[in-house]
């Protein structure tokens, strides 16, 4: 019988990896997959089908550090009349009537934000497109993060474009 001890040992070995893979799957779906939003807002509909400019909604992108998420009023400037019968728009109108701000889940966040100086204005004014950093957002139904936002990513692009790579540029 001793001869077959290897089979339970193998079961333990492969079982351990199955457990690891399952943990990774759980970790991915609960922490790393793109967040779901309170309303099924689609960039594909608004930026490609309706054809809106990014800065029509993210109007701070060329003016300030943050690009900003549009307030519910901006949505309602159209949706008071557009698609009012849709349950998603009725949800939206509910927020507006209650004067409650929409809690959008953040997709992009530099991990140690308080130690990094990053500004949209500087980049957008230089003519870098939103897509270079955020991917083809206009074809996303649900926004997902395409770039890691890690230091290597920032520095890589700065090197290619001859922008400063001095530590103090980004860390103050």
């Amino acid at each position, binding site marked *: 019988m001793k001869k077959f001890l290897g089979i339970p040992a193998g079961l333990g070995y*492969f079982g351990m990896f199955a457990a690891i893979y399952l943990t990774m799957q759980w970790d*991915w779906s609960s922490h*790393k*997959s793109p967040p779901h939003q309170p309303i099924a807002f689609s960039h594909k509909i608004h930026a490609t089908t*309706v054809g809106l400019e990014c800065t029509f909604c993210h109007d701070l992108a060329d003016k300030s550090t943050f690009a900003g998420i549009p307030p519910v009023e901006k949505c309602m400037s*159209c949706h008071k009349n557009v698609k009012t019968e849709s349950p998603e728009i009725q949800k939206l109108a509910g927020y507006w009537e209650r004067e409650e701000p929409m809690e959008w889940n953040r997709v992009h966040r530099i991990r140690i934000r308080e130690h990094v100086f990053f500004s949209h204005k500087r980049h957008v004014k230089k003519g870098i497109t939103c897509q270079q950093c955020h991917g083809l957002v206009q074809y*996303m139904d649900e926004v997902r993060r395409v770039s890691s936002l890690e230091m290597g990513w920032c520095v890589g692009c700065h090197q*290619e474009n001859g922008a400063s790579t001095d530590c103090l540029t980004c860390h103050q």
Partner: protein
Amino acid sequence: MEFFNQFMIAPDAQHLLLLRYLLVITLLIHVPYMAMAVGCTSLSLALNLVDRDRKVKTTPMLGRLAYDLMRIAVPNRVVPVLFGMLPLAALWMIYGQWLYQSSVNTMNLFPAGVFVIAAGLLAAFMYKGTMYPGGQNRIVNLALGMAAVGTLIVGTYIVIGSVVRFQDPERWHMTHDPIRTLTSFNIIWKHLFFVMSGFAMAGCGILYFFFDSSRRKPVMDPAYMKIAKNVGAALAMKGVLVLPVLGFFYMVTTPILAMSTEVYSVAIAALIVLFIIFVLLYLVLASPTPRFGRLTFILLVVVFLLTGVWDQMTLVNATKEHSAMLVSRAEAREAKSKLEREKLGTDALKIDLALGENVFNTVCSTCHKMDERVVGPPLNTVLPKYAGKYDELVSYIQSPSKKDPEYPPMPAPSVNLLEIKSVAAFLLGQDPGTLQGGGGGSGH
């Protein structure tokens, strides 16, 4: 990509779906063979190097096994072309179509890798030709063997590297520098995974082609049989045991956006099949006679099928937006050519106010009301501009241009020319009678 894009046609939705199936099938034809060729050639070279029997003029067991391994790797001229080179050319086309007009440039590295692989397979062929029993010059033989192993490893690394790059859009812009393109842990783990699966494949290849295939030799020296069985099963066993570790590191280094829960499920399925192979190999090692050759071989091919599906899935995930863009452009092209086809016949068609009203209520009313601002301006305020300029209104609706900075731009509505003409007539209160024939029909 510019150079490459010249040879490609812009794909549409069905086309992309077809490419996904083609990719899995081509990978299934190519990868098991290529992995086995790499595994067999490396093992053959290793056995050849340690073959001390040669000096004692008895039966050179290891040398003979080294030779028989090469008979699996490159049995004749046809197999390497059929399973090696042709599928590579197909893969080049498939990936090129899939990533049509993307900024990723590694499609230029891919053919370079293919040439190196071709050289490797040729060297493997010559290595086999100069071996025991026919070969005389051991130095030339060993040099050819080393050249074969080296070029095959480098060639497969380049090909795998340029393909693994596709699932990392963040680094697409770096792809003009080949060294930086090919240095990534993700690629290294994937390549190690490939080489190790090649050793497993070579081991199972011995068990299958020596003992279980219809082509097996009727008489076989029992001592040789025992060596071949043990070397084959032990090698396959090592490969099977190390693959879960490499799969783990490969998944950890794969960009998050290429993953999905399904990818992990496929990896777990592959793990289960690997466990079954493990049990079978264990029984083979414990028994004095070779068994399960065909079964382990087929199960290992199933593992390759699963990893092919896995590769296809990560590529689909990573290029989701790019594919959405291709589909959306294809739809726009289709709509445009439909419009143009219709344009040819419209002059004869009847412009109809009822149709115009219908189009207005179903299409335009999403964004327009007569007296209220919706997405677009209230039409009462803009239509006076077009009084008496029927043609101008038709061409504006056909391809809207930016007018008022107060409003977002109007996208081209998906309606045909007859519908546009009818809605324009409806809005301007034109009498369709005056628009028939030449005059109003000329649009632009």
